[in-house]
């Protein structure tokens, strides 16, 4: 017997990585070249390889100070939201879990609304949203624990209660300050507006930390898909894994929404599409979600700022508008393949 080559665990194949990289490079190129000031692809490549005269000064300025930071920010936020969504779905064994499940969005929304309503300095807004998100999730965790049972269901229910409560407070604050209503509304629907590289540098440390912790837990998330009892019977410290992964995902998501507002659908649709095509292993789902989340949000942002140019659509509208039909398409195709 045993003439056959030993079997291999499911791993990220080089082909999948290439497809993911191609998607990112494609989205990145489109996002940096298309806009009110057109930048020709060939010229941009020449410029990139040292030919400083290939682009006009104005084109080069726009590329460096406007387009690239925005595209990079879109990629980072999309990547983080998709990664956080995939890890929440793993930890809670719930395909409908998204990064906002435990109150990140409601907390960030309240923080941002308070900052905008009080006409705080612009630098305060992301800090307030970030703090609101972290406090909300910490409160959800405390509430879930205080009930006594350590089940994920209790935690999810605590998240629902916390989100409803914070949204109620947020709506109240918003209605009390009708003069800033439009601004609050625009923030809630999500937007990737940048002032140079400031936002990118602001969130980068959190995203690197959160993303790394999540990716390091890829095998643990596979074990957790057997459920709490079987995972702990295999010697896995389920509570610790859950706390670390949820903590990392929350930190990254809070940083992302702090500069981009509440962009929905990415965290659910991207990991799902990946899962439908590649199967159940998180060692494949996590890295590919990060890659395709980046590409998806860059394209969504490009759409948001070009269809009604010079006006901008909220990016949350675009992610839903593009994401839902795309998801249905994947759903149909993947079913056909099986």
């Amino acid at each position, binding site marked *: *017997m*045993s003439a*056959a080559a*030993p*079997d*291999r*665990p*499911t791993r990220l194949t080089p082909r999948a990585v290439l497809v993911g990289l191609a998607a990112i490079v494609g989205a990145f190129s489109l996002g940096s070249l298309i806009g009110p000031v057109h930048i020709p692809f060939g010229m941009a490549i020449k410029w990139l390889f040292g030919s400083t005269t290939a682009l006009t000064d104005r084109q080069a300025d726009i590329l460096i100070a406007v387009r690239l930071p925005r595209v990079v920010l879109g990629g980072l936020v999309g990547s983080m939201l998709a990664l956080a969504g995939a890890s929440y779905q793993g930890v809670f064994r719930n395909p409908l879990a998204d990064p906002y499940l435990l109150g990140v969005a409601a907390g960030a929304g309240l923080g941002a609304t308070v900052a905008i309503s009080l006409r705080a300095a612009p630098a305060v807004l992301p800090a307030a949203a970030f703090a609101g998100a972290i406090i909300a999730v910490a409160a959800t965790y405390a509430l879930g624990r205080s009930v006594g049972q350590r089940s994920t269901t209790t935690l999810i229910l605590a998240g629902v209660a916390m989100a409803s409560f914070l949204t109620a407070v947020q709506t109240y604050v918003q209605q009390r300050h009708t003069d800033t209503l439009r601004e609050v509304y625009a923030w809630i629907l999500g937007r990737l507006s940048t002032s140079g590289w400031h936002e990118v540098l602001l969130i980068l440390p959190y995203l690197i930390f959160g993303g790394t912790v999540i990716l*390091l*837990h890829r*095998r*643990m998330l*596979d*074990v957790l*898909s*057997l*459920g709490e*009892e*079987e995972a*702990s*019977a*295999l*010697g*896995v*410290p389920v509570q610790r894994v859950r706390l670390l992964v949820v903590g990392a995902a929350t930190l990254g998501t809070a940083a992302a929404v702090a500069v981009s507002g509440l962009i929905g659908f990415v965290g659910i649709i991207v990991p799902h599409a990946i*899962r439908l095509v590649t*199967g*159940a*292993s998180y*060692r494949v789902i996590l890295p590919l979600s990060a890659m395709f989340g980046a590409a998806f949000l860059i394209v969504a942002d490009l759409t948001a700022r070009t269809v009604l140019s010079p006006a901008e659509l909220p990016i949350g509208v675009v992610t839903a508008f593009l994401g839902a039909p795309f998801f249905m398409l994947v759903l149909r195709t993947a079913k056909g393949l099986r």
Partner: protein
Amino acid sequence: MNGLSVGDLRVAFGSVTILHGVNVSAARGEWVGVIGPNGAGKSTLLRAIHGTVPSSGAVMFGGHDMGDLTGTARARLAAFVPQRPAAPPNMRVFDYVLLGRSPHISYLGVEGRRDISAADDALGSLGMVSFADRLLGELSGGEFQQVVLARALAQEASLLLLDEPTSALDIGHQLHVLGLIDRLRNKHDLTVLSAMHDLTLAAQFCDRLVLLSHGVVVTDGDPRDVLDAPLISQHYGATIRILDDGLGGVVVVPVRQNGHPADQ
């Protein structure tokens, strides 16, 4: 090496006591069946031995006090298979069997060559090598139960705790899977403690039976002695007849209370 010895095991959930000081033992390589009506505490006993529910009392296996061990160390000694193991439908069989290697892999580590060959060997022992690339959702109940056993085998634990391992299978597959368990324990010198619903099969496969009722061990011994009609009838709350199968074994037959419909 020493077998399993459980002394004065108590489990309570809040004010409800499930196990009232249970004593059970199994010699190395022995297959002990735990029988008893629903709610007797069979599953809780297996879980408490494995440490997935809090308990008081002593659980010793292979010379180790299981209570003193970390979760990982316990999982290297004992494999627990619940009655209905989770089966993520899109998971590959090989990946599933490989999860059994978890206690041998560091927290953030990934599988090494040794783990991959252990999973291969486990699939091989069950004659399931050709299933490696199938998805769990594509397997029949019997095939999945064998894959579950392969995962437990890949764990390389010498104590198997099985909670009604064949409750979802038809008669043919029950015999097949129980036969596999028997072969595996002989081959790998495994100690097996399994909760059993089917008393006839329990008598055929187990070296010894423990009758549990209301969280107390009622009797413990050779299957032919434990399967005593009045005793079983009393604890299962049903009229039961024990027949000789003519081959040295016994057959346990439940009898309808109001007589056979044809008699009426």
